């Protein structure tokens, strides 16, 4: 994952710097920020990676940054670093969608493993996102009648039921179905349903 960056946000310079060094030793690219605001100012959404965030900082703390990122629809996985006393806060962060948390002092392998998994998730997330976007484009290319047929197929209706529902002949339904399968480049019915669901759920 050479194009991914580990964003490290910590107000303690030594911790920040040492984390950066640790990432570098593991062949990861890291960028450090001394505050949440600094990060928000310097980050663009396109950059893949993950966040290592000290939950307790002056100014905007970890939890607040997390909700701000969510508001901006940034989906970087967040690894929370917390002290022993901050466990309840970390749990709240997890519930709000953080990737994981790790308590100080931590084992380097454990942290690196978490980072790698977070980066993997980010990569997958970005792939999924790309695929979904393609699906949506295809779905958007359907005619209104084809769209009606797709919706009914996803609901699990049979061709006969569809023909009755739409008041068209069975033959017409089959022709629309074939068109939909073709337009969405579906390999099977289940593939079609998954694609449709992933788009509709969003």
């Amino acid at each position, binding site marked *: 994952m050479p194009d991914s960056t580990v964003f490290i946000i910590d*107000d*303690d310079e*030594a*911790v920040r*710097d*040492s*984390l950066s*060094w*640790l*990432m*570098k*030793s*593991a062949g990861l690219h890291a960028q450090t920020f001394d505050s949440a605001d600094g990060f928000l100012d310097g980050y663009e959404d396109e950059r893949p990676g993950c966040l290592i965030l000290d939950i*307790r*900082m*002056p*100014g*905007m*703390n970890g939890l607040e940054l997390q909700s701000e990122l969510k508001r901006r629809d940034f989906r970087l996985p967040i690894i929370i*670093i917390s*002290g*022993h*006393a*901050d466990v309840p806060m970390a749990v709240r962060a997890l519930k709000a969608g953080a990737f994981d948390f790790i308590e*100080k*002092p*931590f084992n*380097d392998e454990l942290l690196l493993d978490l980072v790698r998994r977070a980066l993997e998730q980010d990569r997958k997330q970005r792939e999924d996102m790309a695929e979904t976007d393609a699906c949506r484009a295809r779905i958007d290319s359907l005619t209104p009648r084809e769209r009606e047929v797709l919706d009914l197929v996803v609901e699990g209706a049979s061709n006969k039921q569809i023909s009755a529902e739409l008041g068209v002949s069975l033959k017409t339904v089959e022709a629309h179905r074939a068109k939909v399968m073709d337009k969405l480049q579906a390999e099977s019915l289940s593939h079609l349903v998954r694609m449709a669901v992933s788009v509709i759920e969003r």
Partner: protein
Amino acid sequence: MRLLFVLPLLLLGVVAQAAQPISIGVLSHRGDEATLSHWSATADYLTEQLPDYRFSINPLDFEEVDTAVGDGAVDFILVNPAIYVNLEVNYRVSRIATMKNRWGDKAYNTFGGVIFARAERYDLNSLADLKSGTLMAVNESSLGGYMMALREFKAAGIEPYRELRDISFAGTHDRVVMAVRKGLVDAGTVRTDILERMADEGRINLNEFRIINQQTGEDFPLVRSTRLYPEWPFSKVRHTPNTLARQVSIALAEMPENHPAALRGNYAGWTIPLDYQPVHDLLQELLLPPYQYSQQFTLLDVWQRYWAWLFSGLILLFIMGGLTTWVLRLNRELSHAKQRLEQRHALILDSVADGIYGVDTDGNSTFVNRAMEGITGWSAAELIGKNQHQLLHHTRADGSPHPGEECPVYHTFRDNVPRYVDDDIFWCKDGHSIPVEYSSTPIRDENGEINGAVVVFRDITERKKSAEEARQHQMEMAHVARLSTMGEMASGIAHELNQPLSAISNYTHGSIRMLKSGQEGIREQLIEVMERVASQAERAGEIIRQLRRFIRKEEPDRKWVDINQLINELVTFLQPELRKAGVSLRLELQEALPQLWAHDIQLEQVLLNLTRNAIEAMQDVPLSRRKLLIRSSLLAGKVEILVEDTGHGIDEKVRETIFEPFITTKEQGMGLGLSISRGIIEAHGGRLLLDTPAGDGTRLRISLPLDKGEEGA
């Protein structure tokens, strides 16, 4: 004859309407009528001779003479020589002529006294024969009729007053003669010529009498018993002008022996004034006026003359004796009272538990009470009169010598200002010292001059002990409070420790990974990282060092403390709390502050307590407004430290009580923090005050003195 006189008198009366009246006082020893009848012709003679004046006779009794002359009621005086001598001495009269007496056809200007008895008293021949007899005289002041005889008695060695049975006075010569004749007395005395004249008048017969101590010679024709003296002098009184006196003197001298006036007055004209020394001698011998105070007084004389004075004197002496007795008794009572007072005084002094002693202006003890002996071990005898400073006060508590000129007791009677010293030492006889508090008050004598001081002192060993115990207790409480604070702060401190530990862990693991990967050219990077590791290890060590220092029991001694360094160390503890509470800290530390003589940990505890309160006070205000300010400065010779937050401030109602123990606005906590903090600051001689900042929030102000202040706490 009378007509002859009356006419010119009438004429004169008319002519001399403007004539000046001149009064001649005459001793009236034979009655006023006789006197006027004898002497008016002489006055008329003078008026005739000196027409500008009208002379008149003023008869005077023996008693009246002095007053008349003293008051100036008469211008001339004609009296017997004895009275004259007195007037001469007392009123400065001066004689201008002496009368010549007439006997038969002879004139003579002396006279004497005659002492006589009835002729048949053959037993009476000499004066000594009259011892135990009775004598009658004319008058005490009568010269011829008494004094002359008296002198002869004395000359004969007879003390008439004592040795004669009785001396009586008849008033006139005639009556004396008649009384002797009748045998009423053994003898009488009259002036010469009386007997002869009375015989001449046919009233007596000279044969009826015998003359005692009869004198002969000196061509004196009359019987006499005494020496002779000059006849009566005619004198001017002091106010009479000399010209008039001279004119009168000449007129009298020119009077013929047989002039009708002389015949009328039974004399033979006037001669120049005689020497009256014999009269002086007589009066002197008899100790009569004006010689009554002469030396030859006997005790009896003294008694006779001065009995009233002596009596008064005796009474006075008696009164004085009484007074003396009274004063002596009063004195005895006073000395008893004084003794009682002193006993009571001593009793009071000795019943007081405090030591009391007096000091004179030389610094020597004047008195001591029993408590002082008990406390110091010195006896009163060892203390009194000795220099108190050298005995009790010679060395200070720190072992340095205490010079006398710095002794507060001395200063008291130098500047008259009472002093109170609450912590000093006195040295006891056995060489150990005791802590004392004492007051020294100037004392004044009855004139208001300061003559020393009174010192009242108390052994404060017990007080010091309980103060020490209180201090110990306060230290223990402060220690407990610190432990409790640390307990509350443990997680924060753990976090603070975690930071460097995490950094070290990251650095080292990263380094190991780098080394394992066998990359080239990472040596320089590794060295740099290792240096960071070392500095983080030091950071962790520093936190632990601070922590240990803070929670240990402090050393009892103070030391010089740099308050800014203390604040920076405090921030180590504070950092986690600040991070947790999202509070931003601003330090405004004035550079180069003087150091304070203090217990560093206690001060740090106070600051930590105040800052943690401040952080806690801001938990409800928006993040952006959570600001903590710590400022140090030098202000008016004191180091001032401000701790200011931007919280909601302290409720007006609670402001007054926040420094009291167990008052708290927090849900948790005992409310001991501010109470202990204030205790610590006050023990340093400083003050901890609640101040009102301009905006919201709370400001606490610590001010600490620069000097070493009280060492007590």
